[in-house]
C-alpha cells in the first residue's frame, strides 16, 4: 500500500474561497481509497488533510500509521469515487438449480444495460432451497428481484411481507415465467434397471433419489408429476394415485433437503438407480460428468414446472433500482435471454429459441399445476402440509 498525504490550508472563509464543506466534498470525490480529515482550531476549520491510499493487494490489510493530528474529526472514508455513470447493484435471490443460468445471463444483461444506458450493473446472485430463499427475502434479505422455483414461494413474500402486490404473477407474460422446465429421470449409463417411465420408478427393487418435498421446491414438482402420472394411468382414481406415489417414495433411501443435494447424492456418492431431477439439472450432470456415466430418460408424462420471476417492489424502490430490476426481468424474454435459457437447458418460451434447442427437450405430455391440482395453495394443503398425503405415506392414518 502506498500513501500520499496532502494538507490543504484554508485561511479564513473569504470571498471566492469555497466553503470548507465544498472542499471536503471535492476531496472525497477525488478519492478512491483513503481518509479525509479536517482539523479544527477555535471552532474554525483550518486544514483539510487528504490521505490517498493506493491498494496494491486488494485483500491486504490496511493500517494507517500516520495519524498524528490531535483534533481529528474523521469525516469520510470514501470507497469509490462518484463516477459520472451510475453504478447499479442488483441482488437476484434464486433457487438451487439456476446457478449456471444466471451466471450467464447476468453477464449478458450487464453488457446490454451498459450499451443501452451507459450504467454499469452488477448483479449478485444468491442460491438455496426455494422456500428458504423466500423466507430470507420476507425476513429482510434485500433482494431486488426473486427468481424462485415455484409461485407459492413468491406468493408467501407477497402475502406475509407485502413487498410486492398479490397479483404479481400477472405483471409479466406467461404467468411471469420466462422459461419452463420439467421433471425427468437421470439413470446410470446403459440404464441397467431398464427405467422407461414412472411405473419403473415405483417398481420394487429400484432405488430412487429425490429431495424432500417439505424442504425443496423441485421435489414438490416431482411429487406432483408422479401423482399426475398415476391419476392419468388410473383414470383419475385418487386412491390409486396415492398408493402409487407411496410405492415410489418407499424406494427412496435418502431425502436430501434440496435439489443440488440430491444430485450430489446420486452422482458423487453413487446412491440410487434413478434421480428424479429438474430437466436442466439432469442435463448439467451430463455436461459435467459426461454422457459415458449417465443418461437422461424422459417419462411419457410430467409436469410443466413454471419457475416464476418477480421484482420485489419495495426493496427495488428503496434501492432506486426499479427500472434496472424491471429491465433485468424483461430482458429474460428477449431473444438473447431466451437463447441463454435454452443453452442452460431450460425450455424457452420463444419459438425461435425453442426450435434451436429443441433437440435437448424430448417431447412428452406436460400437465400444468393449475389444471391438474387447482393451484399451489390447494396442492400445498392437500399434499405437503402436516397430515397431507406426503405425511400419510410414512404414517398411514
Amino acid at each position, binding site marked *: 500500500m502506498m500513501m500520499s498525504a496532502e494538507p490543504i490550508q484554508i485561511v479564513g472563509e473569504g470571498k471566492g474561497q469555497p466553503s470548507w464543506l465544498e472542499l471536503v466534498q471535492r476531496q472525497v470525490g477525488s478519492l478512491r481509497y483513503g481518509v479525509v480529515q479536517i482539523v479544527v482550531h477555535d471552532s474554525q476549520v483550518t486544514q483539510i488533510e487528504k490521505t490517498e491510499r493506493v491498494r496494491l493487494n486488494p485483500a491486504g490489510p490496511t493500517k494507517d500509521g500516520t495519524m498524528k493530528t490531535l483534533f481529528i474529526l474523521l469525516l469520510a472514508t470514501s470507497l469509490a469515487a462518484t463516477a459520472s455513470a451510475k453504478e447499479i447493484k442488483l441482488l437476484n435471490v434464486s433457487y438451487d438449480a439456476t446457478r449456471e443460468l444466471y451466471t450467464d445471463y447476468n453477464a449478458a444483461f450487464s453488457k446490454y444495460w451498459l450499451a443501452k444506458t451507459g450504467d454499469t450493473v452488477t448483479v449478485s446472485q444468491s442460491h438455496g432451497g426455494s422456500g428458504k430463499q423466500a423466507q430470507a427475502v420476507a425476513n429482510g434479505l434485500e433482494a431486488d428481484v426473486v427468481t424462485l422455483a415455484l409461485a407459492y414461494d413468491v406468493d408467501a413474500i407477497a402475502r406475509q411481507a407485502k413487498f410486492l402486490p398479490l397479483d404479481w404473477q400477472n405483471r409479466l407474460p406467461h404467468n411471469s415465467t420466462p422459461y419452463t422446465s420439467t421433471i425427468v429421470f437421470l439413470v446410470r449409463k446403459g440404464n441397467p434397471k431398464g427405467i422407461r417411465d414412472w411405473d419403473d420408478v415405483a417398481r420394487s427393487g429400484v432405488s430412487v433419489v429425490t429431495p424432500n418435498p*417439505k424442504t425443496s421446491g423441485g421435489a414438490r414438482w416431482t411429487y406432483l408429476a408422479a401423482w399426475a402420472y398415476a391419476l392419468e394411468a388410473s383414470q383419475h382414481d385418487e386412491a390409486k394415485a396415492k398408493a402409487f406415489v407411496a410405492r415410489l417414495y418407499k424406494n427412496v433411501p435418502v431425502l*436430501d433437503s434440496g435439489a443440488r443435494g440430491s444430485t450430489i447424492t446420486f452422482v458423487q456418492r453413487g446412491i440410487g438407480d434413478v434421480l428424479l431431477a429438474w430437466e436442466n439439472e439432469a442435463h448439467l450432470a451430463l455436461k459435467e460428468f459426461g454422457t459415458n456415466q449417465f443418461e437422461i430418460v424422459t417419462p411419457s408424462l410430467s409436469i410443466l414446472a413454471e419457475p416464476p420471476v418477480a421484482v420485489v417492489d419495495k426493496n427495488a424502490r428503496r434501492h432506486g433500482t426499479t427500472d434496472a430490476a424491471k429491465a433485468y426481468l424483461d430482458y429474460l424474454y428477449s431473444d438473447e435471454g431466451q437463447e441463454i435459457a435454452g443453452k442452460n437447458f431450460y425450455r424457452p418460451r420463444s419459438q425461435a429459441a425453442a426450435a434451436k434447442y429443441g433437440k435437448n427437450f424430448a417431447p412428452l405430455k406436460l400437465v400444468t399445476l393449475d389444471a391438474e391440482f387447482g393451484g399451489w395453495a390447494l396442492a400445498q394443503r392437500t399434499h405437503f402440509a402436516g397430515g397431507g398425503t406426503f405425511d400419510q405415506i410414512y404414517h398411514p392414518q
Partner: protein
Amino acid sequence: MTPKSSTAKKNRVLPGFKLTLGFTLFYLGLIVLLPLAAVFGKTFELTWPEFWHTITMPQAMASYRLTFGASFCAALVNTFFGLIVAWVLVRYNFFGKKIVDALVDLPFALPTAVAGITLAMLYSHNGWIGQLLEPLGIQVANTRLGVFVALTFIGLPFIVRTVQPILEDLDPELEEAAASLGANRWQIFWRVILPMLTPALLTGFALAFARALGEYGSVIFIAGNIPMKTVITPLLIMGELDMFDYAKATALAVVMLVASFALLLTINILQWWTNRYNTNNLA
C-alpha cells in the same frame, strides 16, 4: 470444581455486586431470553388443540426419539472416550502430543456442513469406511447410526476440554496417599480420581448433549432424512419453515427448548450434588 468459600457469601469483599448482577441480567435477557420469548410468542398464535396436535404428530414423536436418543448415546460414548483422550493428553508425553491436542478442537472449528459432507462421503457404501462395513451388513450413512456418528463427531471436544484442566490440576499427593494406604491402581482410579472428575464429566456430558440436540448441518447430510425413521427434530422445524408455517415450527422448537432446559437443569443439579459430596469428602 471450584471449592466454595463460605466467607465470600456472608460479606462481599468485592464491590459492584449490584452493578454486575444488573448487567448480567440485562445481557442474558437481551441475548437469551428475548429471542426465546419471541419463540414462545409465535407459538401462542396456535390454539391449544393445534399446538398439541403439532407437537404430538407421529412424525414429531419419532423425531424426538431420534434426536434425544442419538444425542444421549453420542454424549455418553463421548464421555467415556473423551475421558480417555483427556487422560492420555494430560498424563503422558509423546511425540506429536501438541498436534493431537489441536486435533481435538477441530470439530469445534469445522463448519458443520463440511463435517456432514465428509462423514457422508466416508460412510456411504463406496466411501473408505462404508465399503469396509458394507460386507458386514452394517450401514451407517442414511440410517440412525449415521445420526449417532455425526453427533459423536461434533461432541467430542466438549468432554475433552472440560475434563482436561481438572485432570491437570489434580493433586498427585492424593494418589500417592491412596497408594501408600495400599490401594491398587484400579481402586485409585475408581475411588480417588473418578469422583473428583465426575462434576467435570457431567458438565462435558451436558454440553455435548445440548450441542447435539441442536445440531442440524452435519446431520442432514448423513441421516437420509426419511420421515419417521431418520428425520431429526431440527429438520422437521426447517420443513415447517419452508412451508411458511412459522407457528408450527416454533411449537416444535418450544418442545425442544423445554425438554433441553429440563434436562440441563437436571444435570446441573446432579453436578452440584456430586460437587458438594466431593468437597465434603475432601474436607
